[in-house]
């Protein structure tokens, strides 16, 4: 009988802990999930201003501009639409015009204020979200995640 009680105590504590953790996770999910959006989504007003999102696409050719205070502006395009992105900071090493990029931040008066710019280790790597967004816009025909080819 006693043994059963002890076990019940443990089960109760464990259940309490898991319930607490579950509640924590659900609220954390609610507030902290970041959706991926393409420039077309923003152009079609699917994106709420001020909500944290990820924006991905290609860096528009000839659009990168360095301001004297260190702010960089560039266009992110899925070929159908282009969104202007502003970013204060040093761009990642593999950031280049014409390449895929993913930025995270908030939309403010039509300009995307990026807090983070992500580029990948591999120079030939296309983030899957970006290639899909490009496909949706009817541009990207290449194979997804194609491997490096050796000449």
């Amino acid at each position, binding site marked *: 009988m006693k043994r059963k009680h002890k076990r019940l105590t443990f089960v109760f504590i464990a259940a309490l802990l898991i319930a607490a953790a579950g509640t924590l*996770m659900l609220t954390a999910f609610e507030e902290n*999930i970041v*959706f991926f959006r393409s420039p077309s989504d923003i152009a079609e007003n699917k994106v709420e201003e001020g909500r944290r999102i990820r924006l991905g696409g290609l860096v528009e050719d000839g659009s990168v501009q360095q301001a*004297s205070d260190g702010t960089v502006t560039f266009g992110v395009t899925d070929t159908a639409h282009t969104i202007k992105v502003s970013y204060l900071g*040093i761009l990642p090493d593999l950031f280049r015009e014409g390449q895929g990029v993913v930025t995270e931040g908030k939309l403010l008066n039509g300009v995307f204020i990026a807090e983070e710019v992500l580029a990948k280790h591999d*120079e030939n790597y296309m983030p899957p979200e970006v290639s899909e967004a490009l496909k949706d816009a009817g541009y990207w025909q290449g194979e997804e995640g194609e491997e490096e080819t050796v000449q």
Partner: protein
Amino acid sequence: MIAEAGHFALILALFVAVIQAVVPLVGASRNNVVWMDFGRPAAVAQFALMAFSFACLTYSFVVSDFSLVVVASNSHSAKPMLYKISGVWANHEGSMLLWVLILSLFGFAVAFFSENLPPSLRARVLGIQSLVAIGFYLFILFTSNPFDRLIDPPFDGNGLNPLLQDPGLAFHPPMLYLGYVGFSVTFSFAIAALLEGRVDAAWGRWVRPWTLAAWGFLTGGIALGSWWAYYELGWGGWWFWDPVENASFMPWLAGTALLHSATMVEKRDTMKGWTIFLAIVAFSLSLLGTFLVRSGVLTSVHAFATDPARGVFILVLLIVVIGGSFTLFALRGPTISNKGLFLPISREGALLLNNLVMTTAAGAVLLGTLYPLFLDAIDGGKVSVGPPFFNTVFIPLIVPMVAAMAIGPMLSWKRADLGPALRKLWLAGILTVVAAIATWALATGGPFLGVVGMMMAVWLGVGTFVELSERIRLFREPLVSSLSRLARVPRASWGMTLGHLGLAIGIAGMTGAGAWKIETIQTMVPGQTVQVGEFDFTFKGVEQGQGPNYSLTKATFVVNKDGQEVVIMYPENRQYPISSTPSTEAAIHTTFFGDLYAVVGDPVGTEGGYVTRLYWNPLVIWMWVGAIFMMAATAVSLSDRRYRIGVSHRRKVVAKPPVSQPAGA
């Protein structure tokens, strides 16, 4: 020719693995000693073949044999020797070969150190170990063969990604894999015990050193990866909750739980089913980690290249291993009976609390990591789950656990009183309050979590010392007698003390680096000064230069504090012509209280201006010291004489009369 020899050895190793899996397992179930003993020479042969195969691949990298696809894609003749060698595992194929090499190394180690094991258990452990290996041999041979040739070899290779040309990264994967794969041994022990139908204190004692070793390596691997990200990526951060970081963190959490529950099996003959369960979970999470990293299903900096065939193969392997072992656990688990009873307030209760928190934390990380996959699979949109989620979930879980961590070791087994234990911790309590006030005063206006973090670090650190002084009855007996008690503290207990101390130091470091980091980004022209916290960074300009396989732009910063020169820093921006990719080399000046960290970016304007990023990262070195403490803790604990000589090893083992087993070994 060399590569073909390596390829051949790899295939031979597969055949040896098949034999090593089948013969000892069948032998164990038929009680055939000769068949059972077959496991050991097979494990030795398998390791020898794998070592040869790996050496062949390494040789191909060293001599830059560009007729091999992996060498041509990932190496270059102008690369320094260290990176030619580390290039062997800086790509998908080579890293999988390293995985299997380490797997066979652990099989070899089990064969070597298993003199005390009952033959049937040893046979089963080696057999299971080999079953896992077979899956990976097939994976390598069919989907990612490092020995594939090119019909038309190029003159020179593509070069290794500059970010990976770094000493920290040269050792990060092998260390991490030693951890990941180390859990294969505890997994094999768990499955073998289920097959044997017997889990006892002796089993706990055999498993614990392997858990310790795997956990220590994993700790080292994670710390090295974090250190590399900190100084190489140039973002001043050290943990990003990147899916791949999570992939290594989940087995660490499960491994930490396993380490503590295995203690209960060993000392108290209880929590046996749970320990088996954790051993399976820890290795499953290691496999899942490998799957997440290698299949490229999750967007991550570590995804080399995505290949659906590989992903499907690992997924099937995952289902077979995890599904199979849990089915076995479901069938056999209920027959395991626990002997040691205990009350909630007891040493066991505290260890159980650790287990609950660690597994819940691992579950939370798993959910956060896989959630984007689930959502994408049901077409719920593409999302990312980042640091805010993990911090929100993690910190509330960890705070009560650390609070309990100082108390747990003070409690006695079976039943204990909370009151006396808390009274003994009065010093820790007072110092924690002092730390809170001091932190509040020093960093007024800083985040509240900074205060909480420092309180946790002091509570745990001082509490650990209090526990040690209680153990040696410091100040309650003459000093000489306390010191002689100190000399007799078992090494395994030292391991606990050092490990907990390491976490305390690490928490202080993480708190400092997380809560009071100062970051400034700006364009600076030569002569300009920028203030970062208490320091003044003066930009002196840049010069161009040449490295072994790159050209560089080197900036000079003179750092002053209160008009006194502290240090001159030289961050670099390197251009690797072969892959035409740049790499930023941050300049870091480490002190006891924090790191000065400078990064130079792209030129701006016509007056010699550059984008610069300057940081004051407090207490960063404490994180690495904490990790070193934890690794030292495992080393010390492993050297405990309990694990070296067979003290009461055979007490509970009713082995079938073994022919080759010397009595009382």
